[in-house]
């Protein structure tokens, strides 16, 4: 693997200095022009999100870093926060400057509490060096501070409106959107919620320029991406590779060429089998927040699907019926399938159920169950693995 840029050396403060050399609106333009799209999964253009928040009425605005990283198979945000906290925080400060916010929060999942002290120390150091707090870098017109808010163990709190509910002291139940957080987010104020990696990439864009980032990846999916690779590979870990890389090329890099199937995008993602390994990992083909789980030919794919559905059934917040009951019914169905006692009509009914959850569930949790359900069932029926 060549020289790494995201996971390369970084002099703290570089991104913020570069941002402060520009007008606030120009920082937003730079992020837009870079083509950066959110790395938390949905891929919303970051510059557009910031533009909406900057334009929203009111002078109290918030920046939130989504460090809930609960999608099965992802751990890149853990590595960024442990090894490159300045890169992430500087991206948040840049966002604060760009949209005119004075406060930022990191929503850190409870499972990552072991990082809390180290992160607080970095923030304290930033304050003592004038990189955080009042009049950042001597700029009287720019105050911005960052606080860490700990999660309490709930996958759905990674969904941005549930995350905001949780920060406000309630159950993490997703809100009806619109209004979107950029208009009415934390405490009903305009709020930018971005993934940990998105903020890290903002810092690199500030450092190296929009053209550099835009020049990597594909037309619709610009730049570099961190991939969390696990499962049946020789070298599990975090890989920095361009967007738009094919599944094959990725498997070669990580030592996973024996793979029968690859789950891209975590439990809520899609399974692809060998004949589709020339497809691209990109927003326009197979989207992912970075979770890549590799399965060798000996794996029982229905068992994999059962594991994912157990996850969804447990993590469903229970607020909407399609998700609360749908996840349970799908799980029962897969268990019956494993016992071999299922009529073809039942399989069709289960697929229909998953598809109707996609249009009727309130948030991405229930909406995305059809992706693993359909694709893993197909892979199983194809007989690519045990």
């Amino acid at each position, binding site marked *: 693997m060549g020289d790494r840029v995201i996971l390369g050396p970084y002099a703290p403060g570089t991104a913020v200095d570069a941002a402060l050399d520009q007008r606030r609106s120009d920082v937003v333009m730079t992020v837009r022009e870079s083509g950066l799209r959110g790395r938390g999964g949905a891929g919303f253009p970051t510059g557009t999100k910031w533009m909406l928040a900057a334009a929203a009425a009111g002078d109290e605005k918030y920046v939130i870093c989504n460090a809930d990283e609960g999608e099965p198979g992802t751990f890149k945000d853990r590595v960024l926060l442990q090894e490159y906290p300045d890169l992430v925080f500087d991206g948040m400060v840049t966002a604060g400057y760009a949209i005119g916010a004075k406060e930022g929060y990191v929503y850190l999942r409870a499972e990552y509490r072991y990082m809390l002290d180290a992160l607080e120390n970095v923030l304290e150091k930033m304050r003592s060096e004038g990189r955080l707090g009042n009049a950042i870098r001597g700029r009287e017109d720019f105050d911005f501070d960052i606080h860490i*808010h700990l999660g309490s163990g709930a996958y759905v709190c990674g969904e941005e409106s549930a995350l905001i509910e949780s920060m406000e002291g309630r159950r993490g139940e997703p809100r009806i959107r619109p209004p979107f957080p950029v208009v009415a987010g934390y405490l009903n104020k305009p709020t930018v919620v971005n993934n940990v990696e998105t903020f890290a990439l903002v810092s690199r864009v500030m450092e190296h320029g929009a053209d550099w980032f835009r020049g990597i990846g594909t037309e619709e999916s610009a730049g570099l991406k961190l991939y969390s690779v696990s499962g049946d590979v020789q070298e599990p870990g975090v890989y920095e590779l361009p967007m738009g890389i094919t599944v094959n090329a990725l498997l070669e890099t990580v030592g996973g060429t024996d793979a029968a199937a690859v789950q891209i995008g975590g439990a809520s993602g899609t399974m692809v089998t060998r004949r589709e390994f020339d497809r691209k990992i990109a927003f326009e083909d197979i989207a992912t927040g970075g979770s890549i789980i590799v399965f060798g030919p000996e794996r029982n794919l229905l068992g994999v699907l059962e594991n994912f559905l157990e996850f969804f059934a447990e993590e469903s917040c229970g607020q909407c019926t399609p998700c609360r009951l749908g996840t349970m019914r799908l799980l029962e169905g897969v268990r019956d399938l494993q016992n071999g006692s299922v009529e073809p009509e039942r399989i069709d009914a289960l697929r229909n159920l998953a598809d109707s959850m996609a249009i009727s569930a309130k948030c991405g949790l229930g909406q995305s169950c059809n992706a693993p359900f359909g694709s893993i069932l197909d892979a199983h029926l194809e007989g690519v693995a045990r």
Partner: protein
Amino acid sequence: MTTRTRIDWNNVVQDVVDMRGEDHTALIPILQDIQRSHGHVPREAQNAIAIALDVSQARVAEVISFYSFLTEEPQGQYIFRLCQTISCEMDGKDEVASALERALGIAFGETSEDGLFSLEYTNCIGMCDQPPAMLVNDDAFGGLTPQSVQDIVADYRRKGEER
């Protein structure tokens, strides 16, 4: 549980509220603090919190019941949370689970009688590159084997008994 002096939950809550404030956004941090210091947030504490923050008791209870790191029932001093999600599941989770049950002397979902240990399954903890993995309170352990689990449990048992 061994005999404990009676806890004055009103005092416990008051101290935490003094630190965290009475704003509704402080509710979860308050619950987290009490959970950590006392191993649970019992009804008495919930009621005191509801009064201090001027929210309903139901609001406090529904928040606790939502989050897996908050509990009304007492938990052990050391909570073992073994990851059950796919990358860990595929790489020896079951053997490690049995070894944990043996070493701790409790089954999943249980708390030991001396109040030292709780054992649970948890979903993905972001350690998929080092399976199988678990959390013990705030510490993460990866690449577990039935053998390494015995050593880890022994360490915590020693720590717990020293306190």
